[in-house]
């Protein structure tokens, strides 16, 4: 049994012009101790997926089984107890930390909110442990976030997420704001923690070399739907979906001698508001046919563990 089983998950937002399909019929499993990378166009629903999975947002429909329990049907109160096991690390350590709280107070906050212990000595002991775990020097206890660099701030965010001993963490762009050296430090830290504590991650990012490095599996989203999912390295060697191919072709390579040719994506954008009954990528897809414009494809397994949402995936692969 996977630690997380997401079934037919939908999250719609109501807008003046109709329902906005932010997450639409998503099915995913995440095995304990592994990382699922989530990539896709900005606005395709990655953050909404992450938030809905840990019920920071109420799903429109569908279920999320966590460790065998359906967290979408439990009451708010029952969920409160479960919620300690599911945490989130945000992209922006600047915005997500209260500037008036010291490092120690910030890390103690979740412990206090969830009343893990009221004993002051125990709390400061736990805070120090957590600072050690994430590599924050103890002398920084009394510092405030604005006095620290981005890497250290992100370490505070990680310490806060770890404070309640979670099993599952949604990492929403945790390294996007950092320089490549600090990014490497934080990724190493996340990997060490995963091994030590058997943590399970959903890792949302736009950085494809990062996602390749950190993930076991990667899923690609487009306008609320998962359009491709497979083992991490496999995605780069054998992408099927035309959107995935466009995405991979646009990765900026840090080499001035490689001339990049991103596959151009032209054509109308499909609105996420009341999307038509058709492939959502069809208007921008160079291979779209009448079928693509008139019916929605279903996820199909191309090779074991590699699923694709495209009417023409098999056929295009044989070309």
């Amino acid at each position: 049994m996977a630690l997380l089983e997401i079934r037919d998950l939908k999250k719609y937002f109501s807008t003046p012009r109709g329902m906005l399909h932010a997450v639409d019929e998503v099915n995913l499993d995440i095995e304990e101790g592994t990382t699922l990378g989530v990539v896709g166009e900005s606005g395709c629903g990655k953050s909404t997926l992450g938030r809905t999975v840990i019920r920071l947002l109420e799903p429109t429909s569908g279920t999320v089984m966590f460790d065998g329990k359906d967290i979408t049907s439990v009451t708010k109160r029952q969920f409160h107890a479960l919620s300690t096991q599911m945490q989130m690390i945000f992209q922006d350590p600047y915005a997500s930390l209260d500037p008036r709280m010291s490092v120690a107070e910030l890390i103690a906050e979740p412990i206090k909110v969830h009343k893990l212990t009221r004993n002051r000595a125990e709390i400061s002991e736990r805070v120090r442990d957590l600072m050690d775990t994430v590599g924050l020097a103890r002398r920084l206890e009394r510092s405030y976030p604005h006095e620290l660099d981005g890497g250290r701030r992100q370490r505070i965010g990680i310490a806060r997420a770890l404070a309640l001993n979670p099993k599952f963490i949604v990492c929403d762009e945790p390294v996007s704001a950092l320089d490549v050296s600090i990014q490497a430090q934080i990724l190493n830290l996340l990997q060490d923690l995963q091994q030590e504590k058997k943590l399970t991650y959903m890792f949302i990012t736009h950085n494809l070399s990062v996602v390749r490095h950190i993930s076991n599996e990667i899923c690609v989203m487009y306008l609320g739907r998962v359009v491709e999912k497979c083992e991490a390295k496999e995605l780069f060697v054998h992408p099927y979906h035309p959107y995935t191919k466009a995405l991979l072709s646009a990765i900026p390579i840090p080499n001035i001698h490689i001339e990049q040719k991103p596959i151009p994506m032209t054509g109308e954008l499909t609105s996420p508001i009341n999307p038509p009954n058709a492939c959502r990528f069809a208007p921008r897809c160079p291979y779209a046919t009448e079928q693509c414009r008139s019916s929605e494809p279903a996820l199909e397994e191309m090779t074991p563990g590699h699923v694709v949402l495209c009417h023409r995936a098999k056929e295009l692969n044989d070309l």
Partner: protein
Amino acid sequence: MGNNTAVEVKNLIVHYETEEGIVEAVNNVSFSIEKGEVMGLVGETGAGKTTIALSIMGLLPHPPAKMYSGEIYLDGEDLTKKSLKEMQKIRGKKASMVFQDPMTALNPVIKVGDQITEVIKLHDPSLSDAEAQKKAIDMLEMVGIKGDRFEEYPHQFSGGMKQRVIIAIALACQPELIIADEPTTALDVTIQAQVMEMMKSLQHELNTAMLLITHDFGIVANICQKCAVIYAGEIVESGTVAHIFDNPMHPYTKGLFGSIPSLDKDVERLTPIKGQVVDPTDLPEYCSFYNRCDYCTEKCKECDPKLVEVEPGHFVKCIHVMQGAEEG
């Protein structure tokens, strides 16, 4: 200053005076960008990149910021001598900035489309409301957002969509200088490629100069002609992209390249630069990279090295490189 120079920054020193101490954010930085040229500015979080950008735009928060020295020429005029009012005009027309944080740059209570329309009208008051609105919708579509979302408010947009709106706004006034502070960090790579392409062609068309702050060497390789690497408020290496990518010389630059995860090689662990960021309130008298450097020697503690031209146009701030250059 050459005829073709769009912006020149000379000996910029900016400190933040806080209760906890003086943050030496920018320490004697000089550079220039030609018209039609894109310069990349890379370096670690907290190195002073945004502070440099804010200095040029006249947007430093006083207090706590204090500019100790510096001349900033845009189009031949020293911006540091301008009044607040004059600077405001310059910001609307001659120079525009795409901010790092898309959340704060948009007004939460005004519809996204109206915010773009406003800038377009400011730039070209002769346009009718309908014309300006039509242009705003075009700009939205140009950055990949469906025009029918014109009437929505910023909170209804994802982070990346907000950033695209901000880029559309910055481009709408067709400035001479664009400062883009991590403009595409929040974007996926396909939209990023489109936005970069759009900025490139516009910049080419209008001969705009651009200062591009980024952590992504891939982007630098793609659109910059020049690049400066900054550490602890100082430029430690600068040159053409060929210098920086093919012949990086400063140990910090080399360390950055070594930290990037590869797209084709598999490694168990990444290799960040060792040690922690230096404390900007307590910078050493000598090379500030000393305690993190794989090549440091006792000699490095004897003086603060100068930025030396090691080959035409390629500057490096490291005594070991200097020795190498002197010895030929």
